[in-house]
């Protein structure tokens, strides 16, 4: 539980952080809440020589509404999200999911940017961002770019983010008819299985749906079969049928002490059903 020696620099701006990242090369790591990185450093699973602290950058703070979108700065903590009146009003799935992450200490330190960039297979927010069809904003040496959340998550702990880039925030269109349901791993409280559902409803009929799962597989991803089955379905009655077999469609499913592949596949269906039903309740 003792990290190797490292240098610590607090960046004054995103531009300075980018310059420091460039300077530090492969030795450099960004630090925000530190709730994934520091435990790994303490176990010497990660041994960066330079930490660039971006956790307090004003540019990365804030939850704003404009142009029909909500934008969240990367350094907003899970507690900030959970406490946001704007999110509770416009996109309650985000506030509610954030409120269920880890425990109070984790929520007070951990950030949305860190959670998305680290992409733990059991992290909650990646599934929510995919279901909301969020766009992830990235700054790099060559300027800024945007990536759809769905394309951002690629594999276990692997995302579309260069070593010299910084995830600066996310934005998405407000959706009320969306909900997240998870089976927490009982020790870590990460999702053993978590499903986010965002629905477009018309008079109790699902016009379209975006359903994403986390925890079950190497990375958060859409459940295309469930989405297809939901199109035109009456909700909430049709939720169970649409969710049936959802877990069987996944190519690869995690297995460990806390849940076998078989159990996790079964739970994908259970929690898809619960998320869809809860989202439909809202619509």
């Amino acid at each position, binding site marked *: *539980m*003792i990290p*190797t*020696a490292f240098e610590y620099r607090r960046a004054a701006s995103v531009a300075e952080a980018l310059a420091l990242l460039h300077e530090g090369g492969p030795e450099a790591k960004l630090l925000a809440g530190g709730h994934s990185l520091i435990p790994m450093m303490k*176990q*010497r699973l990660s041994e960066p020589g330079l930490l660039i602290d971006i956790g307090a950058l004003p540019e990365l703070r804030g939850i704003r509404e404009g142009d029909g979108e909500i934008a969240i700065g990367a350094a907003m903590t899970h507690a900030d999200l959970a406490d946001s009146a704007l999110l509770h009003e416009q996109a309650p799935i985000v506030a509610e999911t954030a409120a269920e992450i880890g*425990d109070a200490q984790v929520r007070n330190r951990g950030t949305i940017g860190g959670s998305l960039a680290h992409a733990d297979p059991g992290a909650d927010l990646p599934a929510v961002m995919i279901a909301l069809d969020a766009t992830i904003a990235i700054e790099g040496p060559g300027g800024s770019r945007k990536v759809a959340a769905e394309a951002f998550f690629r594999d276990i702990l692997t995302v579309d983010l260069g070593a010299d880039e910084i995830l600066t925030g996310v934005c998405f269109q407000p959706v009320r008819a969306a909900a997240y349901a998870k*089976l927490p791993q*009982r*020790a*870590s409280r990460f999702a053993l299985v978590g499903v986010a559902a965002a629905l477009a409803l018309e008079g109790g009929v699902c016009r379209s749906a975006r359903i994403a799962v986390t925890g079950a597989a190497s990375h958060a991803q859409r459940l295309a079969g469930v989405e297809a089955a939901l199109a035109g379905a009456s909700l909430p009655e049709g939720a169970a049928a649409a969710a049936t077999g959802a877990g069987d469609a996944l190519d690869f499913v995690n297995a460990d*002490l*806390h*849940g*076998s592949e078989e*159990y996790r596949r*079964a*739970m994908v269906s*259970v929690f898809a059903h619960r998320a869809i039903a809860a989202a439909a309740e809202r619509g």
Partner: protein
Amino acid sequence: MTSAAAPLLPKLIGERVKRREDPRLIQGLATYVDDIKLPGMFHLAFKRSDIAHGLISAIDTSAAAAMAGVELVLTGAELAEHLGPMPIGTPFPAPDHYSIATDRVRYVGEPVAVVVAADRYLARDAADAIDVEYEELPAVVDPEAAMADGSTTLHEGFARNIAVESYFGGTGTDAETATVVDDSALDAAFAEAEVVISQRMLNQRLAPNAMEPRGVVAHYEAGREYLTIWSATQNPHILRSMAAGMLGLGEHQVRAIAPEVGGGFGCKINIYGEEYAAAALSKLVGAPVKWIEDRTEAFLATTHGRDILGDIEIAANRDGAILALRARLIADIGAYEVLLTALIPTLTGMMMNGVYRIPVIRHELTEVFTNKTPTDAYRGAGRPEGLYFVERAVDMLARELDMDPVEIRRRNFIPAEEFPFPTQGGLVYDSGDYAAALDKALTVADWEGLKAERDAARTEGRLVGVGLSFYVEVCGLGPSSVVPTGGWEHSGVTVERGGKVTATTGASPHGQGNETTFAQMLADHFSIPIGDITILHGDTGVVKQGIGTFGSRSQAVGGAALMAAAGKASGKMKQFAAALMAEQEVSAADLVFESGRIQVADAPEVSRTFAEVADYAYVPVPLPPGLEPGLSEEAFFEPENNTYPFGCHISMVEIDRETGEPRLLKLIAVDDCGNVINPLIVEGQVHGGLAQGIGQAMFEEVVYDEDGQPLTSSFMDYVMPRAADLPSFTLDRTVTPTPVNPLGAKGVGEAGTIGATPCVMNAAVDALAPFGVRHIDMPIRPERLWRLIQEHERENGGQS
């Protein structure tokens, strides 16, 4: 000379006095081992084995030794030149066990080398730079496979990895004469029984997880040939004895200090290799050294608890009368025997009577070495395992007979008039009224109401169960005939100049609240304000003698010693007071303590203040004939027997039909720990114990893979119970004093842990009973329950 109209001090025994320890603990004002910083102090880091079993073929410490700031690097073989094998505290045969492995490693986490460096970071970097080559041996993980012929053995001289084999029973014999076992009565009971219950159950391995990990600071002063050792230990006096022995010193050359200790739960009874190594290294480098365990090390290298596999059989008649019990126990004790390792599972066998009048009991116990962390005491230490086996089996019998779990227990209880009751395990239960505690629990819990609630939930398709357990346990350890270190406790009471009181106790607390309860007792004894009393503990330089805190002995043994010393001090003080009041012809026998004064019982106006008498004792002019100056007395208390608290726990559990997630809805605990000094502290002890007992039933388990690699060595994988997992507990008590100490107090530190586990498991099984489930092994992982539900739903086409 007349008494002023001073307000009378309220009596404090039995009152909910808030813990005096807490303000400093919650404000960061307390001193733990890691807060101790000595000039010139070095820091230790241990290089630990990352394989379960292997021969050390080479260790290269040169890179580590060459690093700046590194003072010394020693392998186990090098340290063994200064430090012999570690002693144990039981009479059982044990293999050699060195502080640091010398030639072979036997569990992941076993130390293989140590670094002494200028700071903790350098020490860890240097430990990482040590290169160890192993010739791997097959890992022995499954205890039954370990016992098989031809298995790989861990220790020379311990064939089939068997450390201890014992036999015990009403008709049987012991290991010494094991060749002649008369099982005729047992066999007859099983042959004649109308019903036989038979079940294999695992009481799984747990990690104690004290909030403060272990830590030690050792300072050997060559100039005065004196070792001072600070350690997060439950028993500094035992540490002193053992460290002295290991270092070739006398007890007069060692001072052991347990400063604030952040929880022990049994895992800080053992004196560990790291403590001996620190002492030896301080002597070698001529400077103080510190080692603080990190959480990963705490999972790997601090003793584990439990891990007993039981094959339990009960013979009974259809009217519910239990005729006999047979238990075959296999204890997986891990790689070595440490202080009490081999003793703990023997307690499990001794507890097989539970609270029942079972005419014939036979148990066989085999303790087996495996390539895992050694086991030792963990809260309850042998009793939770035994009571779990008995209470699960009795519940199964009730289900088999379609009898209410209350009735089966009532039918077999040891009746109140049969105490003291000699058990088949060789214990003598001191006192008890089991029916009274059962009746109270049924009323407090509304047992009939709970069952109705369960039945109503079942008609809605919900999986709800209710469970009940009844336990008895062993507290107040001694006496000396059964505790190898001595079973007494010691206390000193000094009335200081100015009339304040300082007391010492050898019962070294690490969360038990002795500073509060002991002060309450002295406040009443001397009738002075509690703020005028200081309780000192945990320092062999201050507390002359002691044994320590384990086996729920603080109050029953330590409290009794305190009151014996207080009685001597107050008796002498009355003599000084009588001398001061000689003109009024006062006799010491007529004096009483009342609200800061010492007065004649029948004539309160004839009195002196407590402070006046105290001052006189230290400047005794004239010195009363037959008295020495001063008011400082001490006493040892040797109990004549253990105490046997008991109680009834009731719970309600719901299982999510889709996911298998269990939820504890209710838990009601009625405990009888005899007389109570401070109900607030007793309830706190029960709350903590319940959480750990529930933790075993629902959440916790140390898991190893087939290579002996631990899979649960962080809080990311080892599931600890959290506040949100627990309902608000309902507590109540019955009071059956013990005759074995003057306080009538039995002890309560482990009660919750013992009662809660079978109680919750009985409720979980009841929740799935409509599906034909008879037993579930712990912990009730969601997937485990989900599979049982799935099996049923497959067989019944989704209908229950």
